[in-house]
């Protein structure tokens, strides 16, 4: 990085790290490219390509300003979108080759684990309770994991699963809660506690219901065959 554009308060040690990080990123990318050149199976090549994408994040993050952070976020999203699009193409190509409609359930069908039959409801309740206590994004993920365990355990024990068609709607409404909480921060700053809780609980419900949706989608994937 050119010394003249780095502000004075940045220690020389940090600004000298830029070249190291840049070379580090390029070396990671080179290792990934060697792997791609040697590997012949399509799915492995796709996974190795992601290493090159990660190297891109390193190179961009090496700059370390807020503008480079703004470049990282879309870069990450682009990488994810591309890897999803390409894997989708790979799946449809394999389906065309075989000419059968195979189920692409991501889970093995026979989950023979003791944890699924002893106390799954308690674990699920514990996870949901802890998620509500945490609130926010992390809490949503934990509570969603609880919902997934509950759905999975009922499936393993062969019990019927209650179909929750409104889960998507919960997600949408709680998204609105989050937006309202965010707006309150700006227009009514004196109610910051209310808006904080609105945002935290909205995000909790949103993420939890999103992960719960994964469980329901899995069930639909089983039901299809």
């Amino acid at each position, binding site marked *: 990085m*050119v010394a003249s*554009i780095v502000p004075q308060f940045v220690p020389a040690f940090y600004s000298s790290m830029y070249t190291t990080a840049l070379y580090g990123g390029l070396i990671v990318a080179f290792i990934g490219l060697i792997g791609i050149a040697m590997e012949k199976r399509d799915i492995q090549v796709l996974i190795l*390509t992601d290493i090159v994408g990660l190297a891109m994040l390193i190179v*961009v993050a090496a700059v370390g300003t807020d503008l480079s952070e703004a470049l990282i976020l879309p870069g990450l999203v682009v990488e994810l979108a591309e890897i999803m699009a390409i894997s989708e193409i790979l799946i*449809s190509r394999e389906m*065309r080759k075989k000419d059968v409609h195979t189920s692409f359930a991501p889970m093995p069908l026979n989950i023979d684990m003791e944890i699924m039959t002893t106390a799954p409801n308690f674990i699920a309740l514990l996870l949901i309770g802890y998620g509500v206590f945490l609130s926010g994004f992390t809490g949503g993920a934990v509570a969603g994991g609880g919902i997934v365990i509950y759905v999975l355990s009922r499936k393993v024990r062969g019990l019927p699963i209650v179909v929750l068609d409104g889960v998507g709607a919960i997600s949408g409404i709680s998204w609105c809660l989050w937006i309202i909480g965010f707006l309150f921060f700006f227009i009514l700053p004196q109610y910051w506690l209310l808006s904080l809780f609105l945002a935290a609980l909205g995000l909790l419900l949103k993420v939890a219901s999103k992960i719960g949706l994964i469980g329901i989608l899995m069930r639909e994937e089983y039901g299809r065959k």
Partner: protein
Amino acid sequence: MLIENLGGNVMGTIPLGDIVLYLNPLHIFLFVTILVFTALIAISRTETQVESMFGSLDENKVSVGKKEFKQRRFLSVICGIATAGAMITGDLFNFTLFMALIGIVNIGIVSAVKQVDVLNSAYQYGLIAMMCGLPLFGGAAMILAATGTLSLFELASIPASPMMIFGALVMLIGVCGESGIAPFFASKAEMFRTPGSPFILIIHLSSLFIIVRFVEILLTIL
């Protein structure tokens, strides 16, 4: 090079905070052309491909289903809008993002076809596009590190340093890969061998326009 010399006189700037759009005749011409083409494909219907059979007088018609047609038209319009955005933008950051969006949408346009070899080439093109995300974003980050800005208007007035030239060349590799031109062309050419023109044509047209614009950007900032 001075910004006024390339693509005609600057007709004015649109200051939007940090992002300063500037207009000159070249940009406006490219922008309007791609928008006209986008409007044309938005109202057009897809063709039916006719293949003559070998050894007989029969012919094999390959047509596109309605659902696939609608999806393809939607993605083509998105691709056209993204290309138009890349034409008019005055910011290297936005150009990078539009370029990446065009790369994804190009894969999406052919993702629903039935021919296995077209899907195969789309897969190869997708891999190249993902790998070229590194030089594309990395080159932009190097230019940012060398100059501290990504606005083309300011980059034009900053004298080129070796770091900046290196970043611009790396970014050129990235743009070549994402749009699938010369060294990476073989996989992308196979993607056109499917019914669905004129939607397939936007893949080709967008890469042509992107290259014209990127050469102009390179000449401006170096």
